[in-house]
Structures are given as C-alpha cells and as structure tokens.
C-alpha cells in the first residue's frame, strides 16, 4: 500500500517536473528577444525601498524608483537624476533642489516639489514600527532620528523640514551640516515614490514582531510600489518570479527591453545550471569555483564587479562575556581569516583589516591587526578569568549568497572549527535570510557572534563605518562612545583632507575596540549570456536594466 503510494507520489512529482521543464522551455522561446530574465540570490523582502536594506529588494527598487541624485553607471560618482541641480547654503544646512520638469509617477501623479516633501515628511514621520534600524535602515543611519522617536531611538534627527519653494524647487533644511547628505540621496531607499500610491495602499501601516521584523498591513510594499523609473512593477509571486514592465512614458531614455523578470534562485549551483540551460539570461554572484566553467563556455561571459564590500563577524557586546575586550580580542585571534579568504574565494579576495575597503578614502594602513593565533586566544580568555571552553552562540544565514560570502555555511564551519581550536565552544544557529536573519542580527536577538557583511551603497566612508558605528545599534550592543563621537565629527567635516584623517583615526579606534571582526573584501562576478549587451556592473550594485539589450 505504502509502496504504491510512494510510486504515485514519485510519478506525480515526475510529471510535474516534466510539465515544468516543458513550460519553461516554451516560455524561454517566447520571451526570446524583448525580455531579460535575471536570477538574483534571494527574494526581495519588500518592494517599498524605504523599509528595506537588502540587495534583492534594492535591485527591484533600482528599476522602479529614482532618487533626486544617482551615480554615474559603474562608479560611485554622484550625478543629477530627478533633481537637475542643487545648491547648499547656510553652512551646509540648507539644500535647494531644482527639479526635473514633466516627470510623472507610474500612477500618473506628477513629480514636483510637493511629492519630494511628501517623501521626506513620510520618512521623518514614520510610526514606531517603521523606525528601528531593522526596518528603515538607511533613513535611520543617514538621518538619525524621527519626529516622534520610538523607544530605543536615541540619536537626534538630521532632517528639520522640507519647503515647497515652487512646483519645481524644493528646499531641505537640516539641523546640522552634513557632508555625506547629497551622496546618500542616491540610495534607492531614499528614492521618490508616488505620494498618492503611498497613501492609497497604506504604506505607513504595519506592526513590528517581537524580534524586530516589520509586517506591513497595507499592500503598498508587496503589490503597489510606484516610482518614476524606466520600469514599472507588474507582478510578484514569492517563490516564482517578479515581473517588471517597460514604462513607455518614461521621461528619459526608454528601456531597451520590454520586460524584466527577476527570479530568486538562492542556490548557487542552481543559478549556474539555469544559465547553462538558457532558462535565465544572467545572474548575480558567480561562485569562485564556477568562474572557470563559465569562461570555458563559448556562449557565456563573466562581468567583474569592482570590489566594494566587506564581510565581517559581528560581536554582540550586550551578551556576556563579549562585553570584555579581552574576549573580543580572543575572538579576533581565533578566526582563521587568512585560510578562509585564501581557500574559499578562488583568488578574488583579500583579507580585511578594517570595516571598509582600501579603495575608499579614510582607510588606515596602521590599524591593530589580529593574526590567527589559537594559543593567544586561549591565553586571553584565561586572562579574562573564564574557564575554557567558553560557550558562545554563533549564527549564520541560510538561503542567501553574497559576494563577500558565497556560501555562508562554509565560512561559518571554517570559523567555528578555528574558534573551537581557540578555547571556544561554538553553538551553531541559523535562520533564513528573508526575513528573519538580518532583522534578528540588527535587533540584537541573534548570537554572540553573527556572520554578515556589507556592500557599499555610495562612495563615502560614512556609508561603511558611519552606517555601522555612528549611532548606537543593537547589532553590536554598547560600544565605546568615542567611536560615535568621532564619526559624527567626520560627517560634519567638509574639508576632504581633514575628513580623511578623521576617518583613519576612526578606523584605528574601531579596530582597537573590536565591535566585530572584518575578514574579507571580494571582487564579485556576474555571469551573462554573450548575447546580453549593455550591462554595466556597479561597485554599489546600482544597476539599472534600462540600457540592457540582447
């Protein structure tokens, strides 16, 4: 009986598979010329860019919405977008933006100064559930605070008010000068969305779960994202695909392809297979060991993305014994970073000595370094008065792949083994990236140690160490307040040379205090069919599909 049942199930599964393959190939032929199928490493969290901070969500936002400014493709240089020009006055506290005329949101709402102010005011007035850094991450890190700060939000807001000068001129008043403010406006999370749609689909309603995950109650963030971009949202079926359609009334150069389909394929090998079988046209995050396979295939190509990331292990100092510097040093000496970087990244990575890549100004050569030394770790733990082995929880994400950690579990296993050699007893914990892992880490509800990383969003050190450490964050627990102070000072400094020196000083201070252990900067790779043209890899993953053709 059971055997028959099993055979039936197997047969059913097989026929489904056959059907799927058949429909897949039929679809593949139909979408030949005017559709790009791109595989991403995970499902988006939400489609409202203001409440997300993960790559898959922001990639969608890059196509649908636009900011006042953007970056020149393939670089981190700031260029005009929805604002055609801007001027600062009042010592860098008042910024006046000239807006592009004749631009409409996808729902027909005109883009003007009122819309700009509606967006700024929306962020500033976020209800409590939207405020934590596990939700409105970018707004919080750039603008610091809200009109009615929720419990736990202690920093002062940077934003003061938004003024409609006339329909095509908007003015933003800040409470203090900010040097990274303009660059930050290129962030997809700070892009302009239709005030009508935001209101209609209740974009500002939602509840916060106990572990810091937002559950929106409106449909804006899942069904109705509305911007001004070259593509507009058509449909999203979790586990299947997200479809974008060309915006035929786009103000600028219209997209070359009619449709873009984004498919989440978290499994690296499955992404490669999908590309080889022609099911997709390209994918992000090629694994180091697959690069030679792709280069050997005459119909595929590799596109290099400039390195602009850092992989690191966070140490939560709110959890004893991580509040002791000696223990954090023991962790740093106990992570075999050299071996991991050398063995797992196929020669496309370097060991990180601090929380930002060396290409960026402010990187310091002479930070304190912590080479792998298990004996030293054990000694430090004993000095801290602990009995070996010291039991710690170490978390890693599943269902995700990042340039800085192609296979999180593999990095985790190597680190766990080296920590166990160094006097620790590691308790392994994992959670799926979407939507739990990142939120848990950012809310401080994960382990003593957590595996995570960061890809830069704009070319300013504030986007690395400023994002991490300028304001107190639950990710790290309490850290030396001098770090917050120096990073705030660096942000206000407008002289580049002085800023550089201040950031170098900050990096030295951070690595002496060890809120976490950075370990890798990688040069990620994308893979495409040779026929795909016009894709410009961006160091900050701001990659509009509009100029892509095939």
């Amino acid at each position, binding site marked *: *009986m*059971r055997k028959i*049942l*099993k055979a039936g*199930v197997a047969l059913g599964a097989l026929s489904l598979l056959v059907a799927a393959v058949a429909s897949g190939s039929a679809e593949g032929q139909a979408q030949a010329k005017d559709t790009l199928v791109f595989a991403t490493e995970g499902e988006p969290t939400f489609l409202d860019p203001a409440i997300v901070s993960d790559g898959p969500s922001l990639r969608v936002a890059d196509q649908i919405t636009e900011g006042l400014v953007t970056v020149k493709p393939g670089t981190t240089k700031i260029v005009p977008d929805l604002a055609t020009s801007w001027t600062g006055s009042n010592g860098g506290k008042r910024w006046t933006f000239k807006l592009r005329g004749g631009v409409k949101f996808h729902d027909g709402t005109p883009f003007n100064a009122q819309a700009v102010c509606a967006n700024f005011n929306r962020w500033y007035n976020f209800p409590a559930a939207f405020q934590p850094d596990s939700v409105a991450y970018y707004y919080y890190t750039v603008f610091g605070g809200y009109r009615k700060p929720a419990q736990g939000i202690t920093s002062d807001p940077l934003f003061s008010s938004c003024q409609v000068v006339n329909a095509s001129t908007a003015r933003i008043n800040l409470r203090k000068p900010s040097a990274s403010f303009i660059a930050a406006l290129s962030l997809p999370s700070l892009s302009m969305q239709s005030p009508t749609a935001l209101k209609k689909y209740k974009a500002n309603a939602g509840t916060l779960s106990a572990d810091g995950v937002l559950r929106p109650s409106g449909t804006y963030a899942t069904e109705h994202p509305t911007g001004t971009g070259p593509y507009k949202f058509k449909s999203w079926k979790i586990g299947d695909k997200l479809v974008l359609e060309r915006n035929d009334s786009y103000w600028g150069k219209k997209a070359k392809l009619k449709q873009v389909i984004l498919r989440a394929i978290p*499994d*690296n*090998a*499955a992404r*490669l297979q999908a590309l080889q079988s022609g099911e997709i046209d390209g994918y992000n995050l090629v*694994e*180091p*060991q*697959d690069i*030679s*396979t792709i280069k050997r295939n005459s119909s595929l190509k590799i596109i290099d993305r400039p390195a602009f990331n850092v992989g690191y292990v966070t140490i939560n100092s709110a959890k004893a014994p991580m509040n002791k510097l000696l223990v954090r040093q023991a962790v740093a000496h106990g992570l*075999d970073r050299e*071996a*991991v970087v*050398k*063995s*797992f*990244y*196929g020669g496309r990575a370097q060991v990180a000595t601090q929380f930002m890549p060396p290409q960026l100004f402010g990187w310091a050569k002479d930070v304190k370094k912590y080479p792998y030394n298990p004996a030293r770790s054990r000694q430090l733990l004993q000095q801290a008065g602990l009995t070996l082995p010291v039991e710690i929880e170490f978390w890693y994400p*599943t269902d995700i792949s990042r340039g800085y950690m192609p*296979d999180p*579990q*593999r990095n*985790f*296993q*190597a680190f*766990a*083994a080296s920590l166990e050699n160094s006097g620790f007893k590691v308790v*392994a*914990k*994992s959670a799926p990236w979407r939507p739990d892992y990142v939120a848990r880490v950012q809310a401080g509800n994960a382990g003593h140690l957590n595996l995570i990383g960061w890809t830069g969003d704009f070319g300013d050190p504030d986007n690395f160490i400023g994002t991490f450490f300028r304001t107190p964050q639950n990710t790290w627990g309490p850290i030396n307040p001098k770090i917050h102070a120096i990073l705030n000072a660096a942000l206000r400094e407008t002289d580049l040379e002085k800023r550089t020196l201040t950031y170098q000083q900050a990096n030295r201070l951070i690595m002496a205090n060890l809120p976490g252990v950075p370990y890798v900067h990688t040069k990620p790779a994308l893979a495409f069919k040779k026929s795909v043209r016009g894709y410009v890899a961006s160091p900050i993953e701001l990659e509009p599909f509009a100029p892509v053709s095939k």
Partner: protein
Amino acid sequence: MSVAEITEIALEQAPPTGLWRDAFRRMRRNPGAIFGLFVIGFFAFVAIFAPLIAPFDPRHQDLSLIVDGCCPGPSRDHLLGVDDLGRDELSRLIYGARYSLLIGVVAVTVGLTLGMFLGATAGYFRRLDGLIMRLMDIMLAIPGFLMAIGIVALFGGGGLLQVMLAIGIVNVPIFARLMRGSILGQRETDYVLAARAIGVPGRQILGSHIMPNAISPVIVAGTLALATSIIDAAGLGFLGLGPQDPATPEWGTMLTGTVRYLQTQPLLAIFPGLAIVIVVMGFNLLGDGLREALDPKLRGRA
C-alpha cells in the same frame, strides 16, 4: 493439511524445532538474505569501530587542501578525496554510518513499540478498534515524508532527535495495521478460546499467547522499515532538517553540502549517495529473506 502430511513433516524434522530456529535454517539457504546480512553486519561493524577504522577525525578541516575554491578528488592520503572544507571524505562516510544506523534503529523502535501497542490493543479489545484504526487511517492519508517534515517542525525544527521521532511516528500506522490484522487472525483460534475458557485474563492472553504467534509479519515489516527510515532520514537531512550542527557527518547532511559542487566535484555527492543505496539495499534483502523464512506457507519447503 491432512494428518498424514503432518506426521510426515514431524518425522522428517524430529526433534521438533521452534519458529525462529526454523526460520534461520531457511534463511541460511537464501543467498540474498545472507548477502543482506553481510552488508548490514559490515556497516554495523564500521559504525561501531569508526574511531579505529577512520583515518582522520571526521570534523578535522584542512583548508590548505582546497584548490580553486573546491575540493581535490581521491589521492593517496585521502582515498575518497576531501570535501569543501578539506575534511577527509572517507572518515566522514565511516562516521556517517553511525548516524544512519542509529537513526534507523531508534526510529523503527519508536514506530514498532507504539505501533505494536496500538495495533494489539485495537485487535484484541474490539471496543477501541474503531477509534484507533480511524486515527491510523488519518495518519496514512498524509504522505509519509510530508508528515515527517511537519512533525519535525512541530518538535521545534531540525535536529537528530526530532528526525528520529518524526520518522518513528510516521511508521506507527504501518505497524499498527499489521499487528491488528495479525492479532485478528489469532484471536478466534482454539488455543485462545481455550485460554479464555479457563479464565486467563485478557491482558495475559494477549501478551503471552497471541503476541508471540502474531509478531513475525511485524518483525519483517520492521526490517524493511529500517531501510525506508534511513532514506527518509537522509531526505530530511538533505532538506536541512537533520542535525543542526552542519559539521555532523550525517549522510543526508553531507549530500546537501555537495549540491554546490556538482559540476566541479561530483564524487562528493556520489560517495554518500552510494553509501545510502548500499545500506538500504542490505536491509531490503534481509527483510525479504526474513519474510520468506517466516512465511508459514513456505514452512517446510526451501
């Protein structure tokens, strides 16, 4: 069966033999069963003496062995190569035998104990029959593997213990049905009536008289269930519901890790896969042999 035939058999086989000795004698002549027994014996031996046999510690990593992001194949030092973290594949397979056999045995013991108890109760105490068997029917209506996943989730996510319990519970209705059928066949026989007539209490009739005679089909099913349990455990491990420490050398968990390297080093997937296939085949052969040996219709033949 006529009187004449019985006399004949009794003459041939004097002195009279027990069910199990009889079965063993028949099984010895079945090459498939012997081979199965041999395979199981081999894996049991490997599992028990793993620390003595394995050339390396299954958790010991040697990252310096990794070339171009992945894992070199077999070499003189590492007969089956190393995995993506530079761990010796052979040693991991050897230690993996422990987990697979442990999961199989514990899961079947759980299923067998609960199933036999429920089946016997339903078969002998007829008032409970409807309730228990409908419950079993409900469980059978859900695909086994799906139910196992559900049960693992119910017990708070993946883990070795959870997997063993889940697979055990999935097996319960199979054993319960078999046991009940077998008991039903026995309860109206003359010796049971006789026992009842002289006032032996129901529990004792069931325990000491019916059970020993009704148990053989359940034993056969148990052996076969060991095979499916090992497959199910590997399946759950593959889905990430197995032991939560990813360094655990469990065969299913080992397979999960290799998917990413299918194109670069397929051997990593082939070896644990083969181990699962062989051990499952061993249990199947043994189970089939047992069934033939214990089948009353075949008694006296072979």
